[in-house]
């Protein structure tokens, strides 16, 4: 019999378990008032009413707190919720809208109820399921981190992100964060190492982590054969624009190459052999 009872208790859902406890408390209250027995339907109805009252009171208080921009409720929210529930029946001081909620007559009635009513604790201790015994919620089958969370959180919500070092979480080297990988690459670039790609096997020069600031102005002056940047073609090859302030060696080299190309294109245009559609827009 005890094993069957234990199995029945384990098979109860969360709502059934809480409803059963509420029913015991309501039966205790009815017994203290003078009832010796009760119809099961009447007891169930009164229990359902108690749960609805409890949830409605909490909902009204939470709604009021949210409307005030708070996530946590206080006694003002509870006092307002009590007045909202009692308003269809009426209470002393209901017409005074400007009255302080702390001075509500409903709180005074609760105080009188506590003073005159004999204390009636719950009959038996509740066998609460401790949070450590809950099954860890995890979307990964081989997750080493047990995410333990409360029963009020739906199971279909994803788990919280794990917090910890790589050694604690035992993250594989391939699953390192992008930031960590990027940081390592930049550190290698600062030391002047050349990164060889496995596919191309060619030397790739990595830009240093800290570079000097590059300033340049783009002008729309169209010279003979030159498009885009204001570059003066010089025989010495020093292709610097009027407003150019190029310090980067690579950009200077590219600009010089561009200047030579433009010079050749300009000659082609003069000869009438160049078409506009063939202009290469590949610049520095």
């Amino acid at each position, binding site marked *: 019999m005890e094993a069957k009872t234990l199995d029945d208790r384990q098979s109860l859902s*969360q709502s059934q378990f*809480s409803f059963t*406890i*509420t029913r015991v*408390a*309501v039966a*205790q*209250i*009815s017994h203290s*008032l*003078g*009832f*010796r*027995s*009760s*119809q099961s*339907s*009447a*007891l169930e*109805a*009164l229990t359902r*009413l*108690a*749960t609805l*009252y*409890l*949830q*409605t*009171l*909490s*909902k009204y*208080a*939470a709604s009021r707190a*949210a409307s005030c921009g708070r*996530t*946590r*409720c*206080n*006694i003002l929210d*509870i006092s307002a919720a*009590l007045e909202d529930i009692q308003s*269809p*029946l009426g209470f002393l001081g209901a017409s005074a809208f400007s009255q*302080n909620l*702390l*001075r509500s007559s409903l*709180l005074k*009635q*609760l*105080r009188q*109820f*506590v003073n005159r009513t004999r*204390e*009636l*604790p*719950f009959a038996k201790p*509740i066998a*609460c399921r401790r949070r450590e015994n809950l099954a860890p919620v995890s979307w990964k089958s081989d997750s080493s981190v047990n995410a333990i969370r*409360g029963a*009020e959180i739906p199971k279909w919500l994803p788990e919280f992100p794990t917090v910890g070092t790589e050694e604690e979480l035992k993250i594989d080297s391939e699953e390192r964060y992008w930031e960590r990988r990027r940081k390592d690459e930049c550190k290698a670039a600062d030391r002047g190492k050349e990164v060889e790609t496995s596919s191309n096997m060619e030397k790739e020069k990595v830009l240093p982590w800290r570079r000097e600031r590059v300033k340049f102005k783009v002008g729309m002056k169209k010279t003979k054969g030159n498009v885009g940047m204001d570059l003066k073609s010089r025989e010495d090859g020093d292709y610097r624009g009027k407003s150019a302030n190029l310090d980067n060696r690579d950009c200077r080299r590219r600009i010089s190459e561009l200047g030579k190309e433009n010079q050749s294109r300009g000659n082609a245009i003069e000869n009438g052999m160049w078409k506009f559609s063939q202009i290469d827009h590949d610049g520095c």
Partner: protein
Amino acid sequence: MNHVQQQSDGRKDEESALTEFLASLMDYTPTFPDELVEHYMAKSGFQCPDVRLIRLVAVATQKFVSEVATDALQHCKARQSAVVKDKRDKQGKDKRLILTMEDLSKALREYGVNLKHPEYFAESPSTGMDPASRDE
């Protein structure tokens, strides 16, 4: 000036009384356990780590249930006193008070809750009646 001082003194007294009441809730154990009330509050989105407010809500619920049960008790006693007047020989047996749906529905009608058994078709007029009244 004196009127304003009296008002402020009155407010301080009431606030101190409320503070004492909340402190006394820690010594008073409501019938509804704190874990149960916390569960229903969490379902409704009520967040508060203060145990005194949880007990305040539990006391409010207990008060509501007590009021409804008391009204049902009054209806039950009134019904039994009307029956006892007709049958005085069965006075000893009918002292047991039983919470029935009839009394509960009458009590909840004042609170605006409509609790009613659905109508059903029976084989005979005495089906579902109490054995005591069935002997008639």
